[in-house]
């Protein structure tokens, strides 16, 4: 029997077709899995692997006793991913409504928070990166966070996570806002300088924007970790593929003493109150306390201050306006290093150093202190035109006689003019000495945006005149009527403004006019008087400590130079300054202070702050220590528009010494006994 079917041929065709189809499948499989496999494997990996940034804990900032000035706290942060929302059909309206209900806020509030700031966008809005999940709540209830995470299908694009944010524990009520600075989310501009890979990793970073947070950002920030996770099609995490752990930032131990810092901050308030009680406007103040022997900063404060917490999670525009408002005194400014003020008589120890070193004067000779001295065609008077007769340098400093310095200025200026006439360079002894004390230049402190101040000499005045003095003066001369008193000045400056006149030198010798210093510069200069002449570049950071307790680095204040005067002269000046609170211009402010228990020296300063204000800048630059030892601390307080140094700044410094050494009580607010003296 022949079984070959009648359909044999046709079945052959079918067999051919069937196995042809199978072969086609086989060929395509070969092509996909063997030939092109690598490409698709990569696509698959991109598909289901996500890099999650594990933010590193930012290091803390501690005071010298280990008290945290800046720490971290854990918050439950609810964020909204704008990109995920935009992919939803209704652009996330439904999700945001649900979220608003959960957070018990209005829908409009949530919507506003995730709207990118721009022209005409009302507050609050988001001024960070649009690619970054935007925080809508930092203080979420744990139940709310749980609900969001468990019902992720109902809240696509919304996530709740444990995050850390900066906290300011304020030990002893010390704020130190200007020193500590603040952090803010990284900006698009900063991101754009990074590689694409780094951009993805650092998109949620915060960076230091001021103060120590900026200077030590690299050490504090640590290194973010990356967790590579497998995700499913809806973005749910199914497994951790690999993990590079985050490395916490190092702690910064500073030389700040929270107690002293608190004392200083209170003392500035006291000085301001004192000044206002005399009818002075006194809206701002600055103070600094240095360890004279090491050059480290023990306390630094500026008034008005601000609350650094307003910067957490991005500052609102209203808050930003407030901290930069001129009317409010620009609270963001750290006047201890950014405020430039004429030092007034607190500059005199530097003048004395110069004239004695140059041989213009001898510390132990006597000089006449008339009520006035004629310089050029003008008579320069002592404060309230007092005359003290023949006095030695010690008394000159204690009583702060100006006319003696005018005479020295006259002598030096004419000597320099003669040298110029003879083709020699001028000596400009006071200016050189000021620079040797570290004035007129950045101290190099470990804080950003320091101001340099000004020590004017012939060259710098010419340069200033060329760059802007001439232009301003000539324009002013044309604009103002001849009857205006400033018109005459403008006409003169337009043609002769470059001249460094004898009057300029006279003003400079008593720290007026074209001498501008920061409180920190003056403190560093005074420290050199009691530490053997070393001018430090002050440091706030003292020790960098890894999270495991290992000391990474010890920070010493670098030495910037030595003041080129003899130890003898230095001792003479210091001895005179020790008499200032006892018998000199600060005697009133220090009435009743146990000067035998705590040795306090210092110099008052009362500086005219320019043509347009009748209120003087009040200074007291001081050092103090226990008897028989070199002074340990230097404290400088500056209160602009506060009148005499003895009346506002000196009482503030007294409060600082009382706080540090634990002695006495600030005297009752009574008019100073030094009213008869120019400080």
């Amino acid at each position: 029997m022949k079984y070959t079917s009648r359909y044999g041929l046709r079945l052959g065709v079918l067999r051919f077709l069937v196995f042809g189809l199978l072969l086609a499948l086989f060929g395509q499989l070969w092509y996909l899995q063997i030939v092109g496999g690598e490409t698709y494997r990569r696509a698959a990996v991109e598909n289901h692997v996500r890099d999650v940034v594990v933010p590193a804990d930012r290091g803390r900032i501690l005071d010298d006793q280990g008290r945290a000035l800046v720490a971290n706290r854990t918050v439950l942060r609810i964020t909204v991913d704008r990109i995920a929302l935009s992919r939803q059909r209704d652009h996330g309206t439904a999700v945001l409504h649900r979220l608003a209900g959960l957070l018990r806020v209005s829908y409009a509030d949530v919507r506003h928070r995730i709207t990118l700031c721009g022209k005409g966008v009302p507050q609050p809005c988001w001024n960070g990166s649009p690619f970054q999940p935007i925080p809508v709540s930092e203080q979420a209830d744990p139940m709310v966070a749980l609900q969001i995470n468990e019902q992720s299908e109902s809240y696509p694009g919304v996530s709740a996570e444990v995050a850390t944010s900066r906290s300011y524990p304020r030990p002893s009520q010390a704020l130190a806002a200007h020193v500590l600075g603040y952090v803010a989310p990284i900006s698009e501009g900063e991101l754009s300088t990074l590689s694409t890979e780094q951009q993805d990793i650092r998109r949620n970073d915060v960076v230091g924007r001021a103060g120590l947070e900026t200077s030590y950002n690299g050490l504090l920030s640590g290194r973010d970790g990356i967790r590579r996770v497998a995700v499913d099609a809806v973005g749910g995490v199914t497994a951790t593929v690999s993990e590079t752990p985050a490395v916490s930032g190092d702690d910064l131990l500073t030389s700040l003493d929270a107690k002293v810092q608190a004392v200083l901050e209170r003392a500035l308030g006291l000085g301001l109150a004192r000044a206002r009680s005399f009818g002075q406007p006194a809206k701002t103040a600055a103070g600094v306390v240095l360890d004279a022997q090491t050059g480290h900063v023990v306390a630094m404060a500026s008034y008005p201050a601000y609350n650094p917490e307003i910067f957490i999670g991005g500052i609102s525009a209203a808050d930003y306006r407030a901290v930069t408002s001129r009317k409010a005194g620009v609270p963001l400014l750290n006047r201890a290093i950014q405020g430039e003020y004429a030092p007034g008589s607190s500059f005199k120890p530097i003048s004395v150093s110069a004239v004695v070193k140059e041989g213009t004067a001898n510390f132990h000779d006597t000089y006449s202190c008339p009520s006035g001295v004629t310089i050029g065609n003008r008579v320069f008077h002592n404060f309230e035109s007092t005359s003290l007769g023949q006095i030695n340098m010690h008394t000159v400093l204690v009583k702060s006689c100006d006319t003696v310095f005018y005479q020295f200025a006259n002598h030096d200026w004419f000597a320099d003019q003669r040298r110029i006439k003879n083709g020699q360079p001028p000596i400009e002894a006071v200016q050189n000495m000021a620079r040797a004390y570290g004035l007129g230049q950045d101290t190099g402190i470990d804080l950003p945006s320091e101001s340099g101040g000004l020590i004017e000499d012939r060259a710098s005045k010419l340069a200033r005149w060329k760059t802007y003095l001439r232009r301003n003066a000539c324009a002013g001369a044309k604009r103002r009527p001849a009857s205006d008193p400033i018109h005459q000045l403008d006409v003169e400056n337009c043609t002769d403004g470059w001249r460094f006149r004898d009057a300029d030198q006279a003003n400079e010798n008593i720290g007026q006019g074209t001498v501008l210093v920061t409180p920190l510069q003056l403190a560093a200069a005074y420290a050199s008087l009691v530490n053997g002449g070393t001018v430090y570049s002050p440091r706030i950071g003292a020790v960098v400590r890894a999270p495991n307790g290992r000391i990474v680095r010890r920070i010493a204040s670098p030495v910037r130079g030595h003041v080129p005067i003899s130890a003898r002269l230095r001792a003479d000046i210091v001895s005179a300054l020790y008499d200032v609170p006892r018998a000199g211009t600060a005697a009133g402010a220090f009435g009743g202070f146990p000067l035998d228990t705590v040795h306090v020296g210092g110099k008052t300063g009362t500086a005219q702050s320019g043509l347009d204000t009748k209120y003087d800048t009040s200074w007291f630059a001081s050092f103090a220590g226990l008897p028989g030892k070199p002074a340990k601390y230097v404290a400088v307080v500056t209160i602009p528009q506060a009148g005499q140094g003895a009346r506002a700044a000196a009482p503030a410094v007294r409060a600082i010494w009382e706080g540090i050494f634990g002695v006495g009580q600030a005297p009752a607010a009574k008019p100073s006994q030094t009213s008869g003296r120019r400080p």
Partner: protein
Amino acid sequence: MTTLADSLVALRGRSSMRERLRMRDTVVRRFDFLLLGSSLTLCALGAVLVWSATRGPAAISGTSPTEYLHRDALNIGIGVMLGAVTMVLGGPRLRRWTPGVYLLACALLLLVLGPLGATVNGSHSWIILGGGFQLQPAEVAKLALVLSLALVLGEWRATPEGPGTPEVLLVLGLAAVPIGLVLLQPDLGTVMVLVFTVIGVLMVSGASRRWVVALLLVGVLGSIGVVQLNVLKDYQLQRFTAFLHPGTDPRGFGYNATQAKITVASGGLLGVGLGHGAQTSGRFVPEQHTDFIFTVAGEELGFLGCSVILALLGLVLWRGLRIAARSPDPYGALVAAGVVCWFAFQTFQNIGMTVGLMPITGLPLPFLSYGGSAMFANLVAIGLLESVAIGTPRRVR
């Protein structure tokens, strides 16, 4: 025509023991073990792949990770029994019942379009039976069509010179009813399977070349039409996914096709190992345990595993073709040829869509995909093939 009785008579004949053993022709010896073995191996492989595809989502939804494995095993068990019954009932009774099966299929297809039908993935193709059971009439239609074609072309209107134009028109008319009803669901994948089965059976039965070429042309053009319609279908599927998982990014048209391709290709030569597929456990491919089951094999078993699956499917098709070629009666040969056409095209369409050769349509992969109706239909079809095989006397070499 050889029957079981004939062979038993032959056994009683006087021969030497050796000769008798050599000549022995029993039901057992006629039975195609290779066909049964390869199809059951495919079923087992399918169960494992279904387990791998469903254990992740099950773990998330809180059901047992082996839930689908158990159900698939149950389907296979029921399917094997249905197949055995089909085989035992054999040719004559099935022939008698064929018109009934055809009418039943059409009735069910009508029913599914009514209020009893349920819509899944945009197709109105399920009848919910209650108790967790549901029936897909399209699978019944495939069986009914194969049997009806064989009955008409292999027996009722069988002519030695093959079907003439009246027969062809009769067949087309008969086929048009279920095809039209399936098209209304719309289940384009099944329509294509039915169309190509009709063309295949007509060709094998000896229809004139002109008819075959003309119908093939219509079939191919129709397929291109499906490709065009597929844009809509793909979109619907996506909308469905987006509805279930709002977090899914609708990455434009062709998301399923792209993901399926990526998943298959990422397996490479040896695959990432059973249960280790990140694409699979990540549920990147929708409908992975049913229509896209082959992507699991692609990712986790690699080129080697896929080749084994293709080889087993090839084996089933080869045995089917062999049974068709050996069947002494036209009806049996056409039943076998019909089953081969159905399996071959459905396999090509299903695997083809996962590897980017064919457009996405909703079709299960024979034996491997999860799904009761399809599993039953496939195993009943194997029963049909076996019944043809045991109706064919052993060829004596």
